[in-house]
């Protein structure tokens, strides 16, 4: 207890009296953690980007003209109740016509063709969005439901199928790449932290020898460095939070606009996973610095 108290005192003294070395070490820690958090942010953004593309993919189901609203609304209710479906929009025949004319308002030929037909060629339409691209197959199967399956004139999905496959392949490649990148970054981070601790202990090598010569036990020499490492990790994590979270919050609106999403969920991702993300980073850093300083010290403790 007395040893812990004293070594803590020495650790604080060391930090203060070697303030530039301390600041440099903390700075290295902060930069390392920030890099890791940029990686985490990229992961969230990739998800958002993929989500953004997936959201734009939906299945349009066109019903035969003259299909009763009962069947249409029944189909809408049924589809909306499926857990794989995130939304079903009903577009009436009139609305479909309006949208069509609107979309082609500068195209004389199409407008003329519509006039030639003389009546509304559109039946009701349901636009179904899936929660997940994997769910499209299930939804397509669900459309064969006997209560409304026969009223369906057509569904346009065939195009999307290829797009979805490509997105899936792309997602997998991105995630694979991100994993490799994360691995490389983690390795670099470990090396940087190891080295900055080695440097810090190297600068203290003579003092370590002197401590041993005046009768300090190995633990008495080691503890201040271990306490310093834990304190540095703590301060560095706190500083990283102070940098990363406000930046994420500030950038979120622009990012949301860029990805055409209402909400990317970056800051809420950090909030919800704060314990895991930052607690994990603190623990990893602290454990790493304890191991690093113990290893680096062993060389100088043999006096």
């Amino acid at each position, binding site marked *: 207890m007395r040893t812990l108290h004293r070594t803590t005192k020495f650790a604080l*003294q060391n930090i203060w009296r070697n303030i530039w070395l301390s600041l440099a070490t903390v700075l290295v820690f902060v930069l390392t953690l920030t890099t890791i958090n940029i990686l985490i942010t990229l992961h969230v953004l990739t998800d958002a980007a993929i989500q953004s593309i997936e959201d734009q993919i939906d299945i349009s189901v066109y019903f035969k003209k003259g299909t009763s609203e009962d069947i249409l609304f029944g189909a809408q209710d049924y589809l909306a109740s499926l857990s794989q479906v995130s939304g079903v929009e009903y577009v009436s025949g009139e609305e479909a016509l309006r949208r069509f004319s609107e979309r082609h308002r500068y195209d004389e030929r199409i407008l003329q063709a519509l006039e030639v037909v003389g009546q509304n060629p559109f039946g009701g339409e349901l636009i179904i969005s899936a929660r997940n691209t994997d769910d499209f197959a299930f939804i397509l199967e669900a459309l064969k439901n006997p209560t409304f399956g026969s009223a369906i004139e057509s569904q346009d999905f065939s195009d999307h199928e290829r797009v979805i496959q490509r997105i899936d392949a792309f997602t997998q490649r991105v995630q694979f790449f991100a994993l490799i990148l994360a691995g490389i970054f983690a390795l670099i981070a470990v090396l940087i932290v190891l080295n900055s601790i080695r440097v810090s202990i190297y600068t203290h090598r003579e003092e370590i020898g002197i401590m041993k*010569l005046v009768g300090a*036990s*190995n633990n008495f020499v080691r503890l201040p460095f271990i306490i310093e490492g834990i304190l540095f990790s703590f301060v560095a994590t706190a500083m990283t939070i102070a940098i990363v979270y406000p930046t994420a919050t500030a950038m979120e609106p622009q990012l949301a606009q860029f990805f055409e999403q209402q909400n990317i969920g970056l800051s809420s991702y950090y909030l919800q996973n704060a314990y895991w993300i930052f607690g994990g980073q603190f623990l990893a850093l602290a454990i790493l610095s304890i191991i690093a300083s113990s290893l680096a010290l062993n060389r100088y403790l043999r006096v």
Partner: protein
Amino acid sequence: MIKLHNVSKSYDSNVHALHGVNLHIEPGEFVSIVGQSGTGKTTLLRLLIAEERPSKGKIVIGGWDISTIKSAQVPFLRRQIGVVYQDFKLLPKKTAAENIAFALEVAGDARRRVREVVPQVMRIVGLEGKERRYPHQMSGGEQQRVAIARALVHRPKVLVADEPTGNLDTITAHEIIDLLRKINNFGTTVVLVTHDKTIVNHLKGRVITLKDGTVVRDHVGNYTLA
């Protein structure tokens, strides 16, 4: 107090720093160890504080056989032997008082005792008022006094000094030697390694002369190299 039986030390197979050294130093003696550079004087002191282990032979200090001392025991040995070096070996980021207190703190002494002993030893070495100086704010002589004060905190039975005056001018050197004599007069055994002929002659005490790792002369009197 200090007994060496047939002690040899080789750093590696072809460097034989000491061989076949027999020594017997009584409690309360003041012994000078002289000899040319590279004859094993520092090696002898390093064996006494277990910075090195003898390759052969037996070393007994105050009845404790330290020839094969375990590393976990070494700190306890070092708290019983005061050591002073030519280059002072003070902790640069600690003040004079903190450097001295450190030797007590590593041994787990209570704060009350630290507060009691540090001013005492500072008074013995004549450093009152310099408590808050850092090593770089003190002269060489003052730094060596801090080192001696630090060596005294555990009231050691033995004080060993490796050329403690090597970095000091003549007057300061004699002040430091007088301080060592004063400590010796309190009853502490002092082993002094030195190159300084005038100091040895001034001491008029026991002189052990080493040459090529062996004791070639052990007498009371003046400095000779043969």
